[in-house]
Structures are given as structure tokens and as C-alpha cells.
């Protein structure tokens, strides 16, 4: 009898060994996925960046980059402006949501999320219909007797598109960090002589930095590499670096130059993300997604 019980319960050592094996097996599909669709393409990018059409090693592609410096600078500017606008609107919104009642929080977050359920391209197309010269906004304007505005094809339209498309990615990480904050810390700040405003700037804001960093990264990175927003809302006149890459890669003759731009872009993004994350020295606070 006793012996049976002893056999039925495996010794704890065996259990401890089993678990990692299981989790390793569970990770296999993802590993394969990563290898096929992340690592392998990256290797191709590096390969194409340093070869010419015939496949010979060259630095010519990298040297050709200087022609695109202007486009690159424009992209950075647009992405920075879009990120700044998202932060200016998103931070107060995230704060307001995080301080609302639990029921209202759920509702507000859902309203924020609903657009994200739709494909980005579709959203950008519908934005086109709204902003277009004969679109909804201008229709409304002429209906009330105001002169029409030329919105589509301007830098403003492109930046507006970026803000519209990526805004939730700014709010969500900040919101998630803010809801996790201990309300006692705010009380402690009041107790130590802070009013609401100074308590916010001395406690809530510094503790939200990981979320802010994460939000900035999640808006800036897709903004700087986007191509469809500028194509659809920029009316083909506002070429961004994403468009350049797309055009170069689609043309077999310039594919290698496209790869070189991609590579440099990736490295620059990686550097800026690393620098950003330095500002939120503590990664385990939650909310840091990249």
C-alpha cells in the first residue's frame, strides 16, 4: 500500500526536470517561425545590401544612400512630429482613463481599441475619403458655405494619418503603467506637502516613464517606416523613406539599394530604441513592450 503511494507520486526532482523540456517543446513552433520569417529575411537583407545585381560584394549600395538623405530627414521629422502629437494628446488621455471608475475604464479602452480591430490600410483608405478634395470634410464645409480646404497631399495630412493610425499604441502602454501605480504613493505625496499638480509631476509622471518610452517607441518606429500612409494621404508628393525602400525593392534593378536603406534604417531604429530604453532603467515595471 505504502509502496504504491510512493510510486504514484513522482519525486520532485523529476518534475523539475520535466518542466523545462515541455516548455522547450512548446517554443519550437515559434522558433521555426522566427528562423524562417525573421532571421532568414534579415540575412537576405544583409546579403543584398552588400552585393550588386550579379551577386558580387560591393559597398556601392551603402555609398548610394546619401542620395536619400533628404527623404530620410523628412521621414524622421514627420515621425517625430506625429509622435509628439500622440504623446501630447495620449498622455493626458491615458491619465484620465486610468483615474476613471473601473466600468468607465473598460468602456473607454474599448473605444480606443475598436479602430485597432480594423486593418490599417482600410483605415487609411477611409481617411482618404474623409480628407479628399471632394471628401466628407470638404462636403461639410461647402454645405455650410465655407471655402473648401486642400488637405490631401499636404504634410499635415500625412502626419494626421500617422497620428490617427498609431495613436492607440501611445495610450495603451502609458495607461497600463498608470493603472498599476499604487494610489498610496499619491497619498504619500499629498501627505508630504504636494498638491494634486505637484504630486502628479513628482510621482505619477516619473513612474509613468516606462510606459511613455514604450509608447514613443511604438509610435515612432512604425511612423518612420510607413509607406502606405504617405502614398494614400500624401498624394504621391510626399515621399518618405518607407516609400523609397518599397520603390527600390520592387524594381529588380535597384533591389540592392533598397536592401541597404532597410539595413541602415533598422540599425538606426535599433540604436534609438536602445537609447530610449535607457531612460526607463527598470524594465520589469510592466508596460515596456519593445
Amino acid at each position, binding site marked *: 500500500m505504502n509502496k504504491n503511494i510512493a510510486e504514484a507520486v513522482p519525486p520532485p526532482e523529476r518534475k523539475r526536470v520535466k518542466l523545462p523540456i515541455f516548455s522547450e517543446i512548446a517554443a519550437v513552433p515559434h522558433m521555426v517561425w522566427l528562423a524562417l520569417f525573421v532571421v532568414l529575411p534579415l540575412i537576405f537583407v544583409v546579403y543584398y545590401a552588400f552585393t550588386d545585381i550579379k551577386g558580387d560584394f560591393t559597398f556601392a549600395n551603402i555609398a548610394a544612400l546619401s542620395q536619400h538623405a533628404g527623404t530620410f530627414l523628412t521621414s524622421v521629422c514627420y515621425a517625430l512630429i506625429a509622435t509628439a502629437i500622440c504623446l501630447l494628446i495620449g498622455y493626458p488621455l491615458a491619465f484620465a482613463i486610468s483615474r476613471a471608475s473601473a466600468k468607465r475604464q473598460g468602456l473607454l479602452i474599448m473605444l480606443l481599441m475598436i479602430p485597432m480591430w480594423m486593418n490599417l490600410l482600410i483605415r487609411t483608405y477611409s481617411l482618404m475619403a474623409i480628407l479628399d478634395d471632394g471628401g466628407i470634410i470638404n462636403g461639410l464645409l461647402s454645405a455650410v458655405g465655407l471655402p473648401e480646404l486642400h488637405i490631401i497631399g499636404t504634410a499635415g495630412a500625412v502626419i494626421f494619418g500617422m497620428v490617427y493610425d498609431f495613436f492607440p499604441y501611445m495610450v495603451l502602454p502609458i495607461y497600463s503603467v498608470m493603472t498599476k501605480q*499604487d494610489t498610496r504613493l499619491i497619498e*504619500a505625496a499629498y501627505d508630504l506637502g504636494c498638491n494634486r499638480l505637484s504630486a502628479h509631476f513628482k510621482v505619477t509622471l516619473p513612474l509613468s516613464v516606462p510606459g511613455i518610452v514604450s509608447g514613443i517607441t511604438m509610435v515612432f518606429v512604425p511612423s518612420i517606416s510607413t509607406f502606405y500612409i504617405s502614398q494614400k494621404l500624401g498624394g504621391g508628393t510626399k515621399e518618405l523613406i518607407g516609400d523609397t525602400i518599397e520603390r527600390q525593392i520592387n524594381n529588380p534593378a535597384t533591389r540592392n539599394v533598397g536592401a541597404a536603406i532597410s539595413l541602415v534604417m533598422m540599425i538606426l531604429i535599433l540604436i534609438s530604441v536602445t537609447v530610449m530604453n535607457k531612460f526607463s532603467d527598470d524594465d520589469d515595471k510592466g508596460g515596456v513592450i519593445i
Partner: protein
Amino acid sequence: MNKNKIVELKAISKEFNGEQVLSEISLDIHDNEFVTLLGPSGCGKTTMLRIIAGFETPDSGDVYFDGVRINDVPPYKRELNTVFQKYALFPHLNVYENIAFGLRQKKCPEQEISDRVKEALKMVNLSGFEKRSTEKLSGGQQQRVAIARALVNRPKVLLLDEPLGALDLKLRKDMQNELKNIQHLTGITFIFVTHDQEEALSMSDTVVVMANGRIQQIGTPTDIYNEPVNAFVADFIGESNILDGVMLSDYKAKFAGHVFDCLDKGFDKNEPVDIVVRPEDIDIVPLEKGMLRGKITQLTFKGDYYEIICDIKGFKWMIQATDYVEPDSEVGVYIEPDAIHVMKKSEYSGMFGDYSTFSDEFEHISDTEEESEDE
């Protein structure tokens, strides 16, 4: 005590979601006093502290601070500081900056901040910890930083919300002594909230026992222990045998089927009363010398004494004695007149039975943390 009243609560009531948390609480707290608000979870003690701190406003009643009504004064304008449950240290600031927080808010000159932070750290025995991150400190060290952060502002009143709840027993005892010392040294009025009756008795000048949003008794630790006003206080503070009795006349009480001499008077003739006899005040004597006789049903060795459960006419008494008695033996029980405490009947009468279901584990049920009150 003819000292200046520093905090006065007048008929404070408060309800949360239709639940009455505090009913008509009135309390005076004096300069330089160590007051403990003691009671089980949900008795309203934390809410009371939060009303004094300014985090909650009373539905009715007034709070006075140094003679001035402060109902509508926000927390940051009150001359008091709080040591929070679980410390609430700022995780983004190091030890020095945590302690300097209040002084910076007051725009103190940098030199003065530095001096006062050093002095506060020295008081809590953490000199040299200035640059440490608060998250890397042990519970006891975090506790000390929290105390230093409050004391450095030299408040008139320090509020402490279960500050020792998260510490282990040994550290807790040390911190009790240290807090008591700091209070003597600084002369600041301490208002201390706890559910631990031992902590309350050993630290306080005045203990305020609370239950169900009402003050049950206010008194010195000895008063509270020796002269509990009702069955709740008697049961909550220490161990007690609480019996139904009748006051036959002055100095004569009848309970457990025997008429005892006692020191209490002023009750009506034949008035039903609650009788309290503390376990350490009961003597076990040979059968023939006993006023009562009973059977030992349980005996637990506690180190410096034996905890004995004795069945006397179906009522299980707890007795603490230094001498061993044989379990299952018949013994005599002797109770001195001054060991008997007579209390008026109250709403709590009969709520606390004998020790028939007693187990040490029940002790810990009341130790659960007071989250419900904090909402």
C-alpha cells in the same frame, strides 16, 4: 492629563456604500501622547486615521487640529505626517530623496535638507544608506525609511497605519521599542493603528479599543486590561473567561453555581452581569480547598507556563499556571476577590463563549490585513 488637546474628533460619522464605518466617534488626543487605535479588521480604525490625515472627509462631525477646524483642509496643508501600511516609499527615488521629499516641497535650503535627512537617518539607525535604492532594502529597513521620511518634517502629529504589520515577530518587537524611544525623544504625538493587542498594550499611553465603528473603551493599557467595560474588550484584549453571572449585592457575585466575594459594587440587586476572570488569576488547588471543582481536559506547555483547559460544570475555562497538573484529573479552582471583574451586560454579552472550541489558530484569523477598509 491637562495637556493641550492637539487632535479632537467630534461626533464623526462616515459610511462607504451604505455601510456605516464610523458612528458618532468622539476622541481627544493630547500633546506628546502615544495613542493606539486598536480593533479587529473592519472596525473603522484605519478610516479614522485617514480622516485625521485628510484622505477621507467625514459625512458628519468635525475634526479639530490644535483648536482649528480642519474638515476642509487638504492633507498637504495639515501639520501631520503618515507612515503608511506597506510603507509607500517612492520607487523612483533613492533613500535620501525619499526622505528629502517633504523638505523639498517646503523649499528648504539644500544644506538644511542634507542636515535634517542625515539626522533622521541616524534616528532610525540607517546612517550611510542615503544612496541606496528603496527597492533593495529589507522590509525592516524600508519601514525605517518610511518613519524617517515622516519624522524629518517635524510634524506635530505622526500617524502610523499598521506600520509593523509586514515585519516578522523579532523585528516587530525591536521596532516597537524603537518607535517608543523615538516618540519619547521627539515628543511628537503618535497615533498608531493596529489590530495587535499586545503591541497596543506595550507601546501606548492611551489605548482606544474600537469595534463596529464605535469606540468601546478609552484608557491606559492597565485600565483596558484590568477593567474592560464589556465582553468585547475583555475578549479582544488578552485571554479571558467570560461568564454569565448575577450581582447578588455589593461585593457578592454569583456565577458558575458559586457565590464569590468580589470588589465590585454599585449594581442593582440581582442584576445580571458579565464576569471576567483572567486565566493567570486562577489558582489550581487541591480538590478540598477549591471553590469550584473541575476536570482538566487539555494541557499545553507554553514555555514559561502551562495553558490548561478545565471543564467546570460544562463551561471550559482557560487557566494559566506554572505548575504541571495531570490531564483528566479532578482539581479544585480558587479565585481571589480581586481577580473577579464584573461588567454590565452589553450588546456583546454572550457573543464570546467558553474555550471549548479553542485553538491557537483562531488567533490568526483576526490578524488578516485590513484591505476592506482601505477602499
